[in-house]
């Protein structure tokens, strides 16, 4: 039996189950896999967190370094978000330059961080136009069991929340101090399986999906980012329903991330 045929049978099975509101791993359509977040996983980083959604594991690390502001925004710090979909984490990733999938993950996480004004970039500036902190958010996918965006975003936001500005090490200030994090956006991803929409898809569910929709919400009741992905379509009413549900998941995931011991 070729791999293509096996995948097709699995897809059909997932779609059949979904038609009855069921999932391969026994979850309900609106149920996340077990969620855990471990901040401080990497001590060489200025902030870090390992987030897990079921079999999916993403490690985020923060590094802050002095640098120059962009010429057109002399009063704003620099934030750079990068996702590495390393071939260690999945048989489908190959070594080489970042693939479109990795770029999408980093851009969608980046978008939520910026739009939610998670960090007040103006407070990263040391001397306007001259010197600012550059904040690197690096996300390393370790185990790709599906739904990378939610896991990566949870890891990144938790890492930012626990990050320290290394002012002393770089002789910018007298002592290090915590990075000031104003908001905590949470990404929540659904996929369409026939007429059913399910949250937190596994790798196999993503393969069977007819469209993916991610909504990022923050703790103030705002939608801050959205991304439709994969082949497939959503009606405006589908979108509205997904937005509605995202807030409850956002609140719960945010509480898990914040409750984690630093």
């Amino acid at each position: 039996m070729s791999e293509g045929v096996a995948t097709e049978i699995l897809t059909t099975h997932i779609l059949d189950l979904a038609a009855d509101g069921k999932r391969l791993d026994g979850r309900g359509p609106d149920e996340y896999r077990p969620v855990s977040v471990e901040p401080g996983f990497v001590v060489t980083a200025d902030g870090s967190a390992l987030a897990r959604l079921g079999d999916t594991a993403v490690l985020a690390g923060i590094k802050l370094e002095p640098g120059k502001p962009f010429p057109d925004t002399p009063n704003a710090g620099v934030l750079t978000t990068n996702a590495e979909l390393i071939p260690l984490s999945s048989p489908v990733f190959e070594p080489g330059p970042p693939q479109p999938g990795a770029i999408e993950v980093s851009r969608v996480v980046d978008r939520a961080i910026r739009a939610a004004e998670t960090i007040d970039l103006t407070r990263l500036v040391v001397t306007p136009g001259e010197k600012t902190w550059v904040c690197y958010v690096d996300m390393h996918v370790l185990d790709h069991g599906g739904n990378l965006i939610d896991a990566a975003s949870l890891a990144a936001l938790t890492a930012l929340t626990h990050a320290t500005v290394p002012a002393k090490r770089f002789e910018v200030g007298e002592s290090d101090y915590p990075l000031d994090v104003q908001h905590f956006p949470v990404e929540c991803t659904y996929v369409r399986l026939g007429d059913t929409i399910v949250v937190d898809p596994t790798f196999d569910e993503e393969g069977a999906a007819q469209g993916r929709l991610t909504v990022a919400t923050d703790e103030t009741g705002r939608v801050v980012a959205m991304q439709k992905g994969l082949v497939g379509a959503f009606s405006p009413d589908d979108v509205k329903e997904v937005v509605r549900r995202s807030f409850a998941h956002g609140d719960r995931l945010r509480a898990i991330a914040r409750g984690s011991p630093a």
Partner: protein
Amino acid sequence: MGSVGAKEVPVLLSPEGLRIDGRRLDELRPIKIEAGPLHQADGSAFVEWGANKVMAAVYGPREVHPRHLQQNNKAVIQCKYNMAAFSVDERKRPGLDRRSQEISKVIAEAFESVVFAEEFPRTSIDVYIEVLQANAGTRCAGLVAASVALADAGIPMVDLLPAVAVGKVAGRIALDLKKEEDNFGEADLPMALVPQSGRLVLLQMEGHMTPEELSQSLDLGVRGCRDIYEKMKAALRARYSAPSSGGAA
């Protein structure tokens, strides 16, 4: 969007509710669509939309490059969205950046959702979008141009794909932002519609909106798409009635 630390915000909405270029909140910028301006491509289109100028070309179905992307049961749809170095105020370095790669990906996925790709197994349908002059909304302008180019190339599709961005300007939901509105606005929500089914195949959002504002934006965007749909069909009708012209880029 969110130009943190940038210059002063201009007045984006007059007391009469008119925008900086005099448009109402639900009004599109002027759009001109020309089908088939290019001679080498299998299909092409040129779109002037406000101060955007976007050219699209379609080649295929043809051999797949690189070969390992070939699919046995359908055509692959490859999309390259690219901005000319001189298309923006600050010169853009040639070459694909991450933004272009993301846009290429979501546009390709949008077209895969409507093209009958199973009719052309083992082939590639290549969609090229060149932004020659940019003024906000280029991914939607590119998608509209590419959709007309696909039709011009005779690629069978469920439907054309009109697209437009909705945004939030001075606290109000507004259709089809221009550059100043996009730079200083509070949200940007591009979308592409399958008119036949009423479903969205491209949807992105950045900024902040309440769920109610988002709901209102979706409805406004769908209406905008339906208007653009008429212009796309008109451009194709003009092309078929004057098939051998070509020429005016």
